[in-house]
């Protein structure tokens, strides 16, 4: 008997998500070297130890606040389809911008692994990254790798294995907002909890409500309606 887990790949455009995806799954999904190349969601399977993993290659985005169809697809997948693990692929040579998305994803979901890709490129430029310090600060595993040289893969697969088997627990660092926003979250969260089931982070939804994110509201409405209908059909 094999368990199947879903692993989503998220990250900025051009960080090598698709290269990593292809190298891991052995697929030859066409990849180009420009932003927004990945338009639809690709899937591939990997076996490691006694487990099977379905990798999902999400579109590259700088953010997940639904400014475009790409971002909406990535956001909806992470929040509603709930992958068992989300890999955030970041570019070692441009961590500053890439970590913006990483922090947003840490706010949405628990089991996250930060993959610092293009580490060979960073070495060439004399950039050194202290991944242990990052892991401590972010509360999730941080792994350096080079997708095109297949470097770091054994550690990545082992880390994934240890998360799904409960040997490591992720405690993503949560961003603390200023008093006014935190007060808003505190007053909204109990109501949000009643509506969304436990699997969606109520803190995250409360934050988006404060944002006035209408597209998320519509999406939530539709999904809740669909769920109600299935419940009615069953009874």
């Amino acid at each position: 008997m094999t368990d199947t887990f879903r692993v989503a790949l998220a990250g900025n455009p051009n960080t090598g998500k698709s290269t990593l995806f292809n190298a891991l799954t052995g697929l030859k999904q066409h990849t180009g070297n420009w932003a927004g190349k990945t338009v639809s969601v690709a899937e591939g399977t990997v076996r490691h130890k006694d487990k099977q993993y379905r990798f999902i290659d999400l579109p590259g985005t700088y953010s997940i606040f639904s400014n475009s169809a790409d971002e909406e697809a990535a956001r909806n997948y992470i929040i509603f389809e709930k992958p068992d693990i989300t890999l955030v692929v970041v570019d070692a040579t441009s961590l500053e911008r890439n970590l913006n998305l990483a922090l947003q994803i840490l706010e949405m979901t628990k089991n996250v692994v930060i993959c610092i890709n293009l580490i060979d490129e960073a070495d060439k430029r004399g950039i050194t990254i202290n991944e242990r310090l990052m892991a401590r600060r972010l509360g999730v595993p941080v792994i350096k790798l080079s997708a095109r040289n297949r470097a770091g893969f054994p550690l990545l697969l082992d880390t994934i294995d240890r998360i799904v088997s409960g040997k490591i627990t992720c405690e993503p660092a949560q961003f603390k907002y200023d008093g006014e926003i935190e007060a808003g979250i505190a007053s909204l969260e109990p109501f949000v909890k009643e509506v969304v089931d436990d699997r969606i982070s109520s803190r995250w939804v409360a934050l988006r409500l404060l944002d006035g994110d209408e597209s998320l509201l519509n999406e939530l409405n539709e999904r809740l309606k669909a769920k109600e209908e299935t419940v009615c059909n069953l009874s």
Partner: protein
Amino acid sequence: MDGTKCGILFEGKKGDFIRITSMEIEGVMRRRLLDLGFVPGAVVEVIRKSPLGDPIAFRVSQTTIALRKEESTRIQGELIQRD
């Protein structure tokens, strides 16, 4: 040229380095610009201008991004270096 001259990004000349001080943009567009690295304190280089002066390409955290006049007139900054 040390951080005294204030203005908007749209007035930048090719080769200027401008430190962003504030942004008068709201909503999704503000979010988008923040995500791309247009944050207060960030230093932006003016890379090139289109023939008619709109849009303008800026370099921000190692990436070139073009902004339309609508956005670049609403981002304030101080000139820190002019070539």
